[in-house]
């Protein structure tokens, strides 16, 4: 009984982990069709923001929840102005440019801060479920994933800004005719996507540790989640993270992490074979 409860929590945690790393990318890639290979490095920058500011004495919650998304969001806007805005609609070019950006960021951070920097320890401790003990931080991550999804859903569905953003992604010319500056919409959307990546990096920093190359460990799963999910940010991320996370984590429990990761890829492969446009390309097509 205790064990199945622990398994359930871990399944949720894996789903939450996928949602955290994929949300920013779902906005940038899913909505804006910009292949951002530097998404992993955006998360890395979020992690570094947390480590460096807590070292300077900033409260860890302020660092994770405010400074990390703020810093990376601003950085994202700068990147959009300097690089991305020239590359809208040119998917392969944006892929190359952001790959270059990703290599640059890894190199830059390594040169400035070195390959090793002391991390932050996880806030909260553990609590017991029978003979097992689970980190309270795990629940915090699950809660954060719920907050990610609901805030994006609420914004896109019920606010004017969300409506404008969705409309701009569908038809920027028409939106311009209606008096909206589509450039600002693109810039802001990219910045928000980057901010989500930074927040995710900050949230993961205490449990995974922070090194310049950490983005490479996260980017693959983020892309697989977004591609499998399809164009709709909330429904796509939720459904693919839910399916992939649950199945791969269940297999990890039954056999080990090698088969868990392999199963994640295998399931994504089958889903994309059946649903080439992603889950939301066929099902939930009217969702956001």
């Amino acid at each position: 009984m205790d064990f199945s409860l622990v398994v359930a929590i871990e399944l949720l945690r894996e789903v939450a982990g996928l949602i955290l790393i994929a949300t920013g990318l779902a906005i940038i890639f899913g909505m804006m069709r910009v292949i951002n290979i530097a998404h992993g490095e955006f998360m890395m920058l979020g992690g570094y923001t947390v480590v460096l500011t807590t070292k300077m004495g900033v409260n860890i919650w302020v660092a994770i929840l405010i400074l990390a998304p703020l810093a990376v969001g601003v950085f994202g806007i700068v990147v959009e102005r300097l690089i991305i805005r020239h590359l809208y609609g040119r998917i392969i070019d944006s892929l190359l440019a952001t790959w270059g950006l990703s290599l640059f960021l890894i190199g830059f951070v390594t040169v400035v801060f070195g390959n090793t920097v002391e991390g932050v320890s996880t806030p909260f401790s553990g609590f017991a479920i029978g003979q097992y003990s689970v980190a309270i931080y795990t629940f915090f991550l699950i809660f954060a994933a719920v907050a990610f999804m609901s805030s994006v859903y609420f914004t896109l569905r019920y606010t004017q800004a969300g409506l404008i953003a969705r409309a701009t992604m569908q038809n920027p010319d028409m939106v311009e005719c209606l008096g909206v500056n589509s450039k600002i919409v693109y810039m802001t959307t990219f910045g928000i996507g980057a901010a989500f990546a930074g927040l995710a990096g900050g949230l993961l920093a205490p449990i995974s540790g922070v090194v310049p190359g950490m983005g490479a460990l996260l980017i693959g799963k983020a892309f697989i989640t977004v591609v499998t999910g399809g164009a709709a940010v909330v429904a796509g991320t939720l459904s693919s993270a839910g399916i992939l996370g649950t199945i791969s984590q269940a297999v990890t429990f039954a056999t080990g992490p090698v088969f868990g990761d392999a199963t994640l890829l295998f399931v994504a492969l089958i889903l994309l074979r059946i649903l080439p446009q992603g889950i939301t390309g066929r099902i939930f097509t009217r969702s956001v």
Partner: protein
Amino acid sequence: MKREISRRSILKGAAAVGAAGSLPMIPFAAQAADEIIVGGLHDLSGFIDFAGIPMNQIMLMAIEEINAKGGLLGKKVKGVVYDPQTNMSLYSQYATQLALKDKAAVVMGGITSASRETIRPILHRYKTLYFYNTLYEGGVCDRNEISLGTTPAQTVEKLVPYTMGLWGKKVYTIAADYNYGQITAAWVKRYVEQNGGEVVSTDFFPLDVTNFGPTISKIQGAKPDMVMSVLVGTGHLGFYNQWAAAGMKNEIPIASTTFGAAGAELEILKPEVANGIITSYGYYPSIDSPANKAWVAQVNKRYPEKTPLLSELSAFTWEGMMIWADAVRTAGSLDRMKLIEVMESGKTYDMPSGQCAIDPLTHHAIRDVYIADLKDKTYIIKKKFSQVQPADTQMVCNLKETPNANKHYEISLE
């Protein structure tokens, strides 16, 4: 004269800077006849530069030290350093260059087993003496190579009975999923069983795994007396953070043959996460001997800033240089075979790490091995074992019978 700054001249300048930047560090200068070249191949950039940079610093310090004492055979020793950037094709390129173009008398370096197996056959072919100073899974059989690092049979054999005596007989092993992890996990199992214990489970993790939640739950369910960690790399550091976050730190103790091997774990993890992990290596900076204290002071004096992380890797790089220099002095020659014969003669060297000799049958070090407990980023040495044999490599390699061997055996315990 008016200097024009055109787009072209800026581009030219940038190209020149780029070209200079991509050159190796101390290259050009044709070799003078009165210099002896020592080649250094350590990863100075890339994901294991935290290990390579200290090894390189210590190698250069050893060269300065040899020169300060008058050089060798009346000549100065000169270090030629390349940065293979954790890239195997650069490793093979620079190894060839060191052997053929620079005519290095000896090459120090290689960190991962992959890099060693890239350059070892090259240096063997071109008859250039090679020192590999990193701990590894054992099994290299090559008379041209001297392997100074510890192997699983040296450290695991001591660590397992010590920690079992401390904590109990039920062991849960978690290991990196490549040959070092697989082989070391097999040794853990063998020594645990020899000491009357039981390995309840062995889990392997690809190097990019960062989430250890399911494993931590499984370990809690298995209720072992201790966890033996053979995890490798920065991805796996997540385990220690998540272990502490789950409140397991004071529930089940951890022993490791990999934790802090090159020092990075000590830098990245907070003391409250890392304290109490018991490890076993051939060198710790806290070894309480006059030789080691003097050596640590020498390092601190040479590198008052950016002081290298002292670990088995950097300490044995210095030892490699000293053993080689001693062989040159004894042989009175740079002839490779003469040097090898001196080192095979069973000489015992007094080193910062203790006493060390080269096993003539395997060319691996017979050396002192230590067990230490970690407290606030300092190793507290609990036990010392003298003159431990590289028993694993001895199972597969006998250079007296096969002096031309040129092979890395995968030691199997099945």
